[in-house]
Each structure stands twice: as structure tokens, then as C-alpha cells.
């Protein structure tokens, strides 16, 4: 970090520097700008002093100082979040966990690894290569996102269909609470009695405190894996196939769907062999013991053919499998190159209604003359309709906004929910009252207030008005300046 030339006059800055050191605390304009954004479209964030603690004790000191100075704080990992969960509002202290990147302990017998929150998701699984174990949650951003961020968002990923999202893979968490006390939730062995504070902390979007050490469960590598690439001349046929697979009692390791627009964007560089003339491509992965895998391949192939699949290709080796997955996991980046701006939703719908809702999503996009691209976790009904556009064209933002609202409304009408894995953050707050009643939100607020009575830990997020449910109905619009 750049050496400071001026004398420190800000007592808050001085306190934070004395808690860490001058190298790891900054109020420089470039750092504040950098940490004012995350992977979402939210603009207008304002970071205050940015800190880079390396230990639990240092995090606790930062939180203690924030308490003493009555400041808000926001925790941030790699900043890959897609809902603005780590976008700071009103100059809070930004506590960045990327230097807390040590794998502290791996116990293969207990199948648990203790990690610091800044460990990159993929780094953990790479470090476990050859041991027969891996960390199951695999968000598409796994090359960059941190496990602390996964905990905050209860992240998913393609392989969470069979193995469950992050919450199922966290045994215990050491947390610095907003009052600066250090506690441990859950247990790396056995099961604790009392309220499931571990379970409820995961997915708290950084509003309930800061995870400083995480005991993650390690999953045994399956003895056999098969990746199938199925292509269809209608996206509805692909969606029907997904429903049929689940209805027939098969829970594949992953079941991902990409539409024609996505395939066209991804194939040129991924060279995964996705058929460019298909309207939809479905990736199905099954794993387990060899006979079961063979049975499931056979059944999925049969169901796909019945539902109109043109071709079913089974990857013959690891390299081919990796190419297929590389295309899927890089889809978002490839799409972003098509137009300068994007707006992404993350709703979940009942799987049996996939075909019908996808059709409606296309109709909505057409109505507003927008390009929509669909790449999503079809197996659990988690849609990712991505509207791509050029915000410089007058009137476009308004269309995007209206189309987004209709997509959300369509998903909720189909019996769905607002977010499957990205969380609410800042971006989806205004939709919360469409899914939850005032009383439902009061229950959520009761939880939040218990953890953070002063509302200092990542405030202004998740619930429509932060601390007070009395004002929920008054917030109808995203605040000025905090939009694309």
C-alpha cells in the first residue's frame, strides 16, 4: 500500500491503524473507489476506511473500534456477489477478509477442514486433490469467490443439486459478533443443542457478524462420474426433460440448462462442442458407484429421447468433461461481452413449471424489446434470466426495470421465491414485500435485531428498511443513484 505522507488527523483512522498497522488500513481514494462495488450492477456505493485484518483478534479489534466510534461496518471477501451484498452505503468501515486466506487444518478422518474466510473456494478443493475429498459447493465464481462469501450468501453452484448448498457443508463457524465478542456456532463433531445459530448465520449476508474461521465438511470424491450433453430443438423440451428426470426419482449431481443465445456466446472460446444449432443444451452429471451411474445414464437418456432430445453425448474422458463444465461456468463472463450492461435475476420456481415460466420470460423480453439469455440450474428450478442491454440508449433502463419486475412477478405467481443463491443484498430488497408479508418480515427482523441490536453490521441490506419494519411499506423504489 502507498506510504502515507500526511499526518493522521482522523481518530477513527488512527485507532484502526493502531489495531492493525499502517500497511493494512487505508482511506485512499482509489481503495475506497475499488471497494465501493462488487459483482452486482449496484452503483453509488461509498466505502469509508478499508481494513485488511489477518486474524480473528484483528477482526474483533476492528469491530470493537467501529462500536466505540458508533460506525457501521461492511465485510467483504472477493467481491463477486451479484446482489450488492458487500456494496458499502454511507462510508462504513470496510473489513476485507482476503488476507485471511489460510487453510488452518484438514482432518480427513473427521472429514472437516478449518479455513479462514478469505480462502478461495477452488483453492480448497485443489489443495485436497489426491486425498479423495473435495469441498462440494461450487459456485461458478469459484476461482475467485471466498469461502467466507459462500457462508454469507449460502452459495450454491451446479453440483449443489444433489449435495446441497453451503449450509449443508458448514459444521461450525467462529464469528465476531457486532458487539465484538467472539463466539463459535455449531460443532465440527457431534451436534450442539440449543438454537441452530450456525444454520441461521449461514446466508446472513454479513449482517449478523463476521465469520473468522469456518469448519467445512469435506465430501468424498465419487468413484464414478458421467457427464451428459443433451441437445434439444425446443427449450421447453429440455425443461420437460428436467421435470421428468426429477419425477422419476433421479437426483443427478448437476442438471444445467443453457439456451441458444448462451451457447452462441460461450462455444467460440470454450470449444466444449455445444451444438450451435440447438435451441437448448442440457448438461446432466451423475455420480456415485458404477452400476448406479450406468443405470442413471440409461434412464436419463431414455427420458430425454422421449421428451425430444436430438442427441445425447456422454463425455468420454476427464478433459472432455472439464471442457463441458468450463463452458457452463464461464457463461456469465462470455455473455457480459455481448452488450455493455446486464441485469440478472435469480428466482426459483417449481421444477414442473420450468417450461411454462421460461416461455413467459422470453415473452416478457420480447414485449420490452430486450435480449434475454438463459443459463441456469434447471435441476432445482433456479432461473438466471439475464437481460443484456446498452444503458446509453434512452429509455432502455426503464424497460429493463419493468421487464425485471415482470420476471419476478411471474416467478412468484408460479409458486417460486425471489433468490436461489445470489441473496437479496441491496439489489433485490425492493422485491421482498412481494414474497413476504409484513409479519413475515418482522420475524426476520427479530432475528437480525438479536444479533445486531444497533444495526451496524452491513446495514441497509436484505430487509427492505433495515432495522425498522414499520417503514417497510414506504420503500417502493430503489434509492436514487443505486442502480445499474
Amino acid at each position: 500500500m502507498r506510504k502515507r505522507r500526511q499526518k493522521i488527523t482522523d481518530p477513527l483512522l488512527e485507532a484502526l491503524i493502531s489495531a492493525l498497522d499502517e500497511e493494512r488500513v487505508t482511506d485512499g481514494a482509489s481503495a475506497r473507489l475499488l471497494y465501493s462495488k462488487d459483482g452486482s450492477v449496484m452503483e453509488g456505493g461509498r466505502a469509508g476506511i478499508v481494513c485488511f485484518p489477518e486474524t480473528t483478534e484483528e477482526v474483533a479489534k476492528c469491530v470493537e473500534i467501529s462500536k466505540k466510534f458508533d460506525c457501521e461496518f461492511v465485510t467483504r471477501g472477493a467481491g463477486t456477489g451479484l446482489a450488492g451484498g458487500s456494496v458499502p452505503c454511507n462510508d462504513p468501515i470496510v473489513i476485507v477478509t482476503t488476507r485471511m486466506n489460510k487453510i488452518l487444518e484438514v482432518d480427513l478422518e473427521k472429514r472437516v477442514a478449518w479455513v479462514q474466510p478469505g480462502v478461495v473456494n477452488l483453492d480448497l478443493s485443489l489443495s485436497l486433490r489426491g486425498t479423495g475429498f473435495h469441498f462440494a459447493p461450487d459456485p461458478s465464481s469459484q476461482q475467485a469467490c471466498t469461502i467466507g462469501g459462500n457462508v454469507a450468501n449460502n452459495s450454491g453452484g451446479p453440483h449443489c443439486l444433489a449435495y446441497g448448498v453451503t449450509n449443508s457443508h458448514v459444521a461450525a463457524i467462529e464469528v465476531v459478533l457486532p458487539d465484538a465478542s467472539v463466539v463459535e456456532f455449531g460443532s465440527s463433531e457431534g451436534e450442539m443443542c440449543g438454537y441452530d445459530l450456525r444454520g441461521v448465520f449461514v446466508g446472513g449476508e454479513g449482517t449478523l457478524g463476521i465469520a473468522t474461521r469456518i469448519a467445512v465438511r469435506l465430501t468424498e470424491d465419487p468413484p464414478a462420474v458421467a457427464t451428459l450433453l443433451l441437445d434439444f430443438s425446443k427449450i421447453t423440451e429440455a425443461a420437460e426433460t428436467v421435470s421428468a428426470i426429477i419425477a422419476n426419482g433421479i437426483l443427478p449431481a448437476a442438471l444445467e440448462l443453457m439456451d441458444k443465445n448462451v451457447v452462441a456466446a460461450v462455444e467460440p472460446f470454450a470449444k466444449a462442442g455445444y451444438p450451435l444449432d440447438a435451441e437448448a443444451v442440457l448438461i446432466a452429471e451423475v455420480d456415485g458407484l458404477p452400476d448406479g451411474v450406468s443405470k442413471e445414464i440409461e434412464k436419463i437418456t431414455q427420458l430425454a429421447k422421449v421428451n425430444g432430445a436430438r442427441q445425447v453425448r456422454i463425455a468420454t474422458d476427464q478433459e472432455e468433461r472439464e471442457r463441458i463444465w468450463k463452458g457452463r461456468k464461464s457463461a456469465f463472463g462470455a455473455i457480459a461481452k455481448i452488450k455493455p450492461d446486464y441485469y440478472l435475476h435469480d428466482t426459483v420456481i417449481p421444477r414442473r413449471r420450468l417450461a411454462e415460466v421460461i416461455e413467459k420470460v422470453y415473452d416478457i423480453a420480447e414485449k420490452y424489446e430486450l435480449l434475454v439469455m438463459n443459463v441456469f440450474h434447471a435441476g432445482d428450478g433456479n432461473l438466471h434470466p439475464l437481460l443484456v442491454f446498452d444503458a446509453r440508449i434512452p429509455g432502455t433502463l426503464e424497460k429493463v426495470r419493468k421487464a425485471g419486475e415482470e420476471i419476478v412477478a411471474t416467478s412468484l405467481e408460479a409458486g417460486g421465491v425471489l433468490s436461489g443463491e445470489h441473496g437479496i443484498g441491496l439489489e433485490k430488497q425492493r422485491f421482498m414485500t412481494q414474497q413476504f408479508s409484513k409479519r413475515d418480515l418482522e420475524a426476520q427482523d427479530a432475528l437480525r435485531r438479536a444479533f445486531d441490536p444497533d444495526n451496524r453490521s452491513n446495514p441497509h441490506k436484505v430487509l427492505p428498511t433495515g432495522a425498522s419494519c414499520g417503514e417497510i411499506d414506504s420503500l417502493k423504489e430503489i434509492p436514487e443513484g443505486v442502480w445499474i
Partner: protein
Amino acid sequence: MKSMEEFAQEVGVDSLVTVRGAGTRWGIGGSLLAGVKEVSAPIGVVNVQPEEMIVEVGAGTKLDVLQQELSEFNQEVALAGLPGSTVGGSLAVGSSSYRRARIGTAADVLLQAVCVGADGKQFVAGGPTVKNVTGYDICKLLVSSLGTLALIGVVTLRTRPKPERETWLTGGASLKEVTNCCYRPASVLTDGSKTFVLLEGYAEDIEKESKSLKSVGMLPMDTAPYIPPAVKGNSKEVPKGGLLDLQTGIQYSTQPSQQKQVPESIKELSKRIKSNFDPTGRLNPGRDPYLL
């Protein structure tokens, strides 16, 4: 089936109140205060959706009735309980199956709960889909809470396909020997002298793994071993007369769990949660989830 409105009316707004299922675990989690009004949750399977792998059910429904209905679709829920126990009771206690290493825990099962709060008003926790991170996951808080935060009326649960084959084996193999022979065993238990292994999956795979386990002295059992209820705690000891799950460290015992030391900061946080959800302390007074 009793409606949620009727259930909310029974719960009322001011008197001390408890919800009773089958009462199979009534003796655990502290002593209920005397003279508390007793209510019961709606009973009945509302909607089985095998193609979604979810089921909507009244919390007062017997767990074995639900499992029976789901088995018609070759599905099940990963909840456990003593014979006759209810869905709501199993959730309130947080009773996971001894097959948890393979099928997950009670906390993973509850997707949505329609509840009555301490104010007598209904609220919804979670959502009806298999994946959901919309807002705070109050469902996680309700499981294992002994009804001290809200009273669960109707729930949506995650179901899963039943395995094609289940086989119990017993012998003297260590956990390492067992896991060297088989992939993701559903349960590996010990009584201190013998090991009990449950394999589940497709028939051909299980036959092969059973053969492999034979090489380390594990032989098939005709009937499943008796497994007492799970006891919360993190002791590594085999409980007297009970079993220890070698994969998860969970104890199964008929003996009540030992008193555990709960750190002061956890106690304080839990008190704030209780007080925010139930300011007058009218829900299940005397019950304490930390005494489970």
C-alpha cells in the same frame, strides 16, 4: 384438517401455551410450567409433490403416516422419531436420522413453515422451493427450538428418493477399513465392541460393496440393530448401552444428555432471540433447547 386460522385462534394472544404432538419426547428439554394451555397443530398430508420432491403437511401429522404416504412415490423425508412421533415434534426436537451422513439432517428438511407467533399472528418462514436464500432462514431457527420461538402449523418438507436397497452389516472393522471398502455409507455405528454399517443405493452396487466389506470381517445382519434416539452434544465416547456414529460423532442413547456448558455470549444471544420472538415468554414456558 384444522385450518391455520383455527390453530392461531387456539394459540390465542396472551395465555401461556404449549403445542403437543404425540409426546414421545415430552420429558426432554426442561420442565414445562404447570397450568399451560395445550394446543395441537393441524393434522394431515396436504399435498405430496413427488415431481418437486417436496411435501406439504400439517405439523401434527404422525411421521410414520407421512413416510407411508411418501413411500407410495418411492420417496421419504430425512426426519426421525420414536414410534408414533409427529412431524412437528421431530422438527421441534431437531431429530435427524441415523442415516444423516448420507441423507442429511432435520435442518436440511424444513423448507417452509407456516407458524403462529407469540402475538397470535401467522407468519411464513422460508419458502416452498428446494433452493431458497430469500431473506433470513427462520426455518433453521425453528428446528431444534422446542417451540419456544413460534408454533409450527403447516410445513413444506424436502423429500428424497428412497434407496433401491438397504443392507446392514456387522463385524469388527474400523471406520477406515469400512470407508476403504465402500462409498458414502449411510451409517457407521459402534457399541464399543462391534461395528454396524448401513449401505444403501442401487442393488448391484450394494452387493459389490457388501462383498468387499466381507473381506474385513463384516457380515450381513438379518435385522437392523436397535438404535436409540440421537443425543445432542459433542462427546467422542460410546454412550453406555448406546451407539456412537463414527462418521459424525453423534451419540445414540436412551440416557439423557449430560448438562453442557453454554458460553455466556451464546446464552445472551439466545436470550435476545427468545425475547424478540416471544417478549412475554408465553410459548412453551419452561422449555429450554439448551437442555435437549
